[in-house]
Every structure is written in C-alpha cells, then in structure tokens.
C-alpha cells in the first residue's frame, strides 16, 4: 500500500524542500519507488534542489487540469532508480490546486509508487492545506528556535483537524519530528533550543536531527540531494532518518558539539 508523506513546517526557510529531496532520494536508494511532488505552486524550487530544472515540460497543475497526463509530467531522476519528481507550476498560484484535482492525481500516483513525498509550501493557506490533506504520515520540519517550533505546533493542530484522516475519523496522521539546522555549539551556549526542549514542546517522536552544515548549501546549489553526499554529517543524518522512517531503531548522531582535536585530524572534516 502506497504511503503519502507530507514534509511540512508552517514556517518558511526551515528546510522542507531540502528534506523532501533528501528523504525521497533516500527512500529510492533503499529500493522503494518514490515520487516527490512539489506543492509550492508559483515558487517552484524542488526541481532546482533535485537538479532537473531544465527538464520541466509539464507540471502538477497541467495534470490537474487535464492538459497533460502523469507520464508526461513526471521527471525521472538520472542518478537514482525508482525516483521521480512531479514539479510545481511556476506561472500559476496556489488556487490552481483543488481538493478533487489533487486527490485524483495522488490516487493515480499511488498505483505506481510505494512512497509519495509531498513537499509543502510554507504557511497555512491553500497550498499547505492541500499538501497535507491526503497524507498518511507527516514529517514536521523544525529549526531549533521558538518561532519555528510554534509554527510547527500550529501545523500539528491542522494535521489533527483539517486533514482527510481527521475529517473522516480515520486513524490520525503519523507524525515525525525532523529537527534541521541543528547547531550543537550554539545549543551548548544557550543560543538555540535543544533537542529535548523541542521534543518536550511538540511532544511527537523524533525522526532525525540534521546538523547545520555547509554541505546542505553546496548540495542545493549544485542540484544534488545532500543524502547523496555520503561524507557529510547532514547526509549521514538524513540516512539515519530514512532508517527510522522504515522502522529501524538507530542512535542519534551529531547532537553534541564536536571536540576539535585528534579525532578531527584523523577523520578530517
């Protein structure tokens, strides 16, 4: 049974698209056929992060409107098998997404894929509501600072009240906390919320902690999901998160400040 997973946050700039790209790629690397759907209509970014911006012909809105079929709009990733991207339209706005239209496209995707990753836009308006409406699971992307945590809390409330599962009294959406841009040194100095602080406030299971890393920016700029950078701490942290998403129990890494010294010299970095 195909699973629809929304990557959402409420707040912008916390790493939803980076995480969608990394998680979608990670699931495909594990052999699951996966599609990443960009719900950020009008602010198309996923294609850039995935490095397929020059191959976009038709988009999500074309498919909803019946101007193209899914096979025409889906872009196959060149690096990873079983990985596809359904890009957003750059020329339209969020109102182009209708509940029925989105439902129909997702139903069709479910027939061909194991995982459907919905990359949500920021905010709590139509785009974000559409991205989370049909979700079975939600990855709530949060930065360790108070405004991001509060917005994530708001999104959790919406997942509980305005999703398809909530409206039909089905089992609730399974929630995961993904803490991104985590900076152990700044946490130690008290400049950032700690993992425990965020966990206590949001009270949902922790899926992963992604350290703040230059490799994330490099990956975005080069259009290569950071999870493919197996040397980087962020790439490894995303790989751990994938294992947990698939039901494994794995210790969390990169939670404490790195001790500069012999280890650094040996392992580089």
């Amino acid at each position: 049974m195909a699973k629809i997973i929304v990557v959402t946050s409420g707040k912008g700039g916390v790493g939803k698209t980076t995480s969608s790209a990394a998680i979608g790629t990670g699931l495909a690397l594990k052999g699951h056929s996966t599609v990443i759907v960009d719900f950020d209509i009008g602010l198309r970014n996923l294609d850039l992060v995935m490095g397929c911006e020059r191959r976009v012909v038709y988009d999500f809105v074309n498919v909803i409107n019946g101007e193209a079929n899914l096979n025409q709009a889906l872009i196959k990733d060149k690096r990873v098998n079983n990985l596809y991207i359904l890009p957003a339209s750059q020329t339209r706005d969020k109102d182009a997404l209708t509940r029925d239209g989105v439902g129909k496209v997702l139903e069709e995707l479910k027939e061909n894929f194991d995982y459907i990753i919905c990359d949500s836009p920021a905010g709590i308006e139509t785009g974000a509501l559409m991205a989370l409406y049909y979700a079975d699971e939600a990855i709530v992307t949060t930065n360790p600072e108070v405004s991001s945590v509060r917005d994530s809390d708001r999104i959790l409330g919406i997942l509980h009240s305005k999703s398809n599962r909530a409206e039909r009294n089905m089992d609730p959406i399974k929630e995961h906390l993904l803490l991104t841009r985590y900076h152990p040194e700044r946490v130690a100095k008290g400049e950032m919320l700690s993992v425990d602080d965020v966990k206590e406030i949001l009270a949902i299971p922790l899926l992963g902690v992604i350290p703040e890393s230059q490799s994330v920016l490099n990956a975005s700029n080069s259009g290569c999901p950071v999870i493919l950078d197996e040397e980087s701490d962020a790439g490894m942290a995303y790989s751990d998160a994938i294992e947990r998403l698939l039901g494994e129990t794995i210790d969390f890494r990169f939670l404490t400040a790195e001790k500069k010294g012999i280890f650094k010299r040996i392992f580089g970095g």
Partner: protein
Amino acid sequence: MPLRIIELKGSLFTLSVVKIYSDSLELISSSLSKKLASAPNFFANAPMVADLEKVDDTFPLSELVALFSEFNLVLVGITHASEQQKSYASTHGLAVLNAGKTAPESTEKPEIPPDATNAPAFVASKIVRGNVRSGQQVYAADTDLIITGSVSAGAEVIADGDIHVHGALRGRAIAGAKLNPHARIICQNMQAELISIAGNYLLSDSINSDLWQQAALVELNDGKILISAL
C-alpha cells in the same frame, strides 16, 4: 473574658393568630368564649397575635387588649393593622408583625420551584485527549474542561466551569467565561501566556516565578487572581 450580659440570637416561636372578622366586641367575646371552652388550659396565657385585616381601620385596639386579658390570653402583637392601630401598638408594647404566608385558607397548591422538578441535568465535563496545539481553540460550554495533554503556546482553552490541564499549560486558559467567580484552573506545569477567571486576568509576566513550571491551582480571591502550588 468579659461577662456575658446579653446575646442576640434568631429563633422561631409558634404564635396563634386570631383573625377578627367583626367590629363588634360583643360578638368577638362570645366567639372567643366558645372557642376557649373546648380547651381552656391550652390557651391559658397563650401569646396571641390579632389579625386586623378584616376590621375597620378605627377598630379600638385598647378594648381588644382588655377583652383578651379577660380570657387570660396575652396579646403580643398585631398584624395587617392600620396606621392608627400601629401607633397605638408602638406606645403600648405591642409588636407590629408583617404577616408571612398563612398556611391554611389558601387553596393554592404549594408552589414548587420549576427548577426542582426538571433541575438542570448534570453537564458532563468536556475532555480533550491529547494536546491542544497552537492556533486551536477549545470551549466547554456550561461545564468543565479537561485536557489530558498540554496546551501549546498560542492555543486557547475556555470553559464556563473549571479547566484542568494534565500536561503543561503554555497557552491561554480562560475559566468561568460566563463570569463564574468560583471557577478554577488547575495544571501540572504552569507556563501560561494568560490566565483568566471570570474576566479577571493575569499575564505570564505577572506570574510568580516560584510557581513557573510548577503544578499550580489558580482561583479568584477577593476579585484578584491567586495562584498557589498544588
């Protein structure tokens, strides 16, 4: 300790009321003697109140007092009296009583307050299993509100009765929304943005830091919000 001289206490005594329907002292006298003949000892020195509703405003009270004493009755007060009779009473040691409802005579059914029969049914508390998230609002109309989880910052819980939060209270809690001053807020971890009882409110700034993040009870005391540790 000073010697006790007097003490004021409320108490109830049974008094017989003589309702007088005739202005004629002769007729009153003969009726009284007939009544008393049946149980002479029972009425000996019995305190009596004369109900003057049916007699003339000018009915001579002095002669009635004399008549009663002839029968060994003690007239202690009058009711339904005219102004003239009242002024006589005040100068002659008689009490002027305002008659309450006299039980017999009236054939009305005893009044049952409408609430007694269909008294407001017990309103079950509203319960929220889990957390109330930022931006959510929960209102318990005419009853108490129980939250088994936490109330997030930016969330609002409102009840006409009490509010119980079994997790952390980080948002707003408004108890006694219909101005019930006896409403209370109880939480396991006090970090509220705002707490309000019956329209009186306190912001987080004003919450005693000793109680911050502690289990606490919030109630109204003399119109002021009082927070105490649980």
